């Protein structure tokens, strides 16, 4: 019998530790692992900070706006080609008809968020519905399943056959200019993206080995769909929604620029403000630069976060 020395015992204990560390690594789920990697990514942090600020301004900002956004309080001081610039009472000056630009920017944040979120939700809902039905139909197979999938996908191809802005323009032209129009038009543009994404990922999941394994173990189809296919297809859809929010805000601005946007001047929105300000680029460039910067930074926030999420959830990049 050998007497085990203290140092040796310590070493032997480390063997157990090694095993413990491994168990710990295994217990981490996909989402928690992804979140852990997000936190380590500086781009994700930057995006999250931008979005947090944006949300804060959009939600509580309007309560703290120093002036009403639609009142032409300084109308008397507006001269042709000369509007009051930044000063103590108007931090960002006034716009071309004497409204406080700072208040309009703050109130506009909420409108911009609303346009982005609602149009993305429209695209997400309609697109996911089409893609989900097509994916399920393709997964079920059979003649009916395949032809339903085919019809739906032809419809999606049709939407894709038009350049996105032109599709939005034609929808907006049918519905007439307005805030709702912009939301619907921008939403419809993103329908094919979500539809194809969800369908593709559902079919990929359905053909995966673990679904085959679950099927062979006798798990019922609806349960497989609920426990395996849907959760695994969700990740790319969420990532895409984040990225779509950025393009939605930019596209809404483009529609406003073309005169198809919000025609209710009392509700400020960054896209409309930017579009309106183009006429005053020479006299008051800040009127264009401020909303443009706001749009760029917000879109950047969504893009940064979306890209970082994509990276974090990508199994290929996981080490």
């Amino acid at each position: 019998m050998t007497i085990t020395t203290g140092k040796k015992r310590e070493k032997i204990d480390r063997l157990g530790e090694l095993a413990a560390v491994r168990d710990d690594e295994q217990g981490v789920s996909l989402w928690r692992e992804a979140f852990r990697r997000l936190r380590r990514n500086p781009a994700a942090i930057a995006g999250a900070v931008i979005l947090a600020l944006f949300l804060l301004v959009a939600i509580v900002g309007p309560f703290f706006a120093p002036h009403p956004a639609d009142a032409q309080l300084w109308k008397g001081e507006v001269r042709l080609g000369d509007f009051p610039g930044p000063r103590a009472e108007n931090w960002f000056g006034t716009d071309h008809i004497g409204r406080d630009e700072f208040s309009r920017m703050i109130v506009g944040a909420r409108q911009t968020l609303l346009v982005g979120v609602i149009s993305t939700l429209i695209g997400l809902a309609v697109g996911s519905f089409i893609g989900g039905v097509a994916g399920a139909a393709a997964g079920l197979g059979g003649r009916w399943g395949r032809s339903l999938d085919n019809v739906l996908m032809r419809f999606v191809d049709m939407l894709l056959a038009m350049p996105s802005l032109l599709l939005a323009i034609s929808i907006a032209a049918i519905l007439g200019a307005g805030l709702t129009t912009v939301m619907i038009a921008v939403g419809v543009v993103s329908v094919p993206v979500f539809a194809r994404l969800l369908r593709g990922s559902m079919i990929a999941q359905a053909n995966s080995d673990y679904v085959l394994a679950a099927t062979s173990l006798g798990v019922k189809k609806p349960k497989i769909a609920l426990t395996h296919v849907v959760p695994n297809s969700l990740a790319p859809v969420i990532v895409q929604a984040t990225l779509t929010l950025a393009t939605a805000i930019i596209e809404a601005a483009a529609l406003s620029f073309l005169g198809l946007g919000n025609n209710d001047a009392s509700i400020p929105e960054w896209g409309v403000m930017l579009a309106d300000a183009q006429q005053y680029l020479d006299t008051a460039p800040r009127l264009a630069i401020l909303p443009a910067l706001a749009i760029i930074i917000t879109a950047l926030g969504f893009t940064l976060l979306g890209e970082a999420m994509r990276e974090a959830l990508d199994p290929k990049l996981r080490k």
Partner: protein
Amino acid sequence: MALLEVDDLSVTFARRGQRTVNAVDGVSFSVDAGEVVGLVGESGCGKSVTSLAIMGLLPKQPGLRVGGKAVFDGTDLLQLDDRSRRDIRGRDIAMIFQDPLSSLNPVIPIGLQVTEVLARHRGMKGEAAAKEAAALLDRVGIPDPKRRLKEYPHQLSGGMRQRALIAMAVACQPRLLIADEPTTALDVTIQAQILELLKELVRDSGTALVMITHDLGVVAGMCDTINVLYAGRVVETARRRPLFREPRHPYTVGLLGSVPRLDAGRGERLIPIPGSVRDVLPWPDGCAFAPRCARRIDECVGEPPELVLAHDGRSYRCVNPAPVPGSVPPAAKLGPDAPAAPADPATAPADRATAPAAPADSATAPADPATAPTQVPAPREEESA
């Protein structure tokens, strides 16, 4: 003088915020001209990294450190600059990889992929190069080589692809060929053909071959000398016959015990090695295999086991090696010149009996190491008594 002398080769990957990984931790072995040398071990033991380090093909990344020596024909490959290395690669040392499909460029015809080596190292161009390429394809047993030259990798079968890769490797009659798991991705029948082809090429041209594999069957079929690797170190080196007859390192014993044999007795079980390569003790702290070892004693932990030189040029790194039948176990441990044991093939399986049986349930241990329950046997002090 050996053709290739690898001495204390080490490869470490250091990453910010993560533990430094010693992928190769002091590997030494040598290859004589015309010799076939096997590097054997489980995946993750550092076989491939060793070969890539010798070739200078490790992906350049911050935190990568390669130490030691790899002397080929008098020059240390690790000290060469990029240019001289490129001159040697493909001309004096060539390499074949595991997956023939992904190892071939999918958008370039096979012909150009062969002739580019000829152009680079033998200065051949145009018609002459095409002719030589066709001859090479013919030599590795690809039928209708002229037509194949114009085809793309996806048009070839798996075996043909590997033959094409071999043709590229032997295009300049290298003195050393490194084959990294060349048959793993192929069907069994094709595997045999490829091994036969490699044997033939080695015999005819006198090329030395380093065969990297986890498949002891491949090793038994063609290697002269075998190096068993574990956790980035060579744990046992021996000629083919002695290694299979009387493995000394418990890891080698375990590897052999994991292979199904026709001559095993009825009802005799395979004896898997418990745990996985991830249950490694850092070498400076003792024997890396200790956590999985059935013959572990207290001496295994604390300091790294010395290399023990035994008879017949064989060596192993173990303080409590498997006994050679007919000799007293401690003798082998103490003296490097233990008496040669009578070679008796029938006693080889008997090692299983001498090795304490692993827990019975480990026979059904899942193949996936990530999900396998870690089986670190509790330290048993009475074993050393």
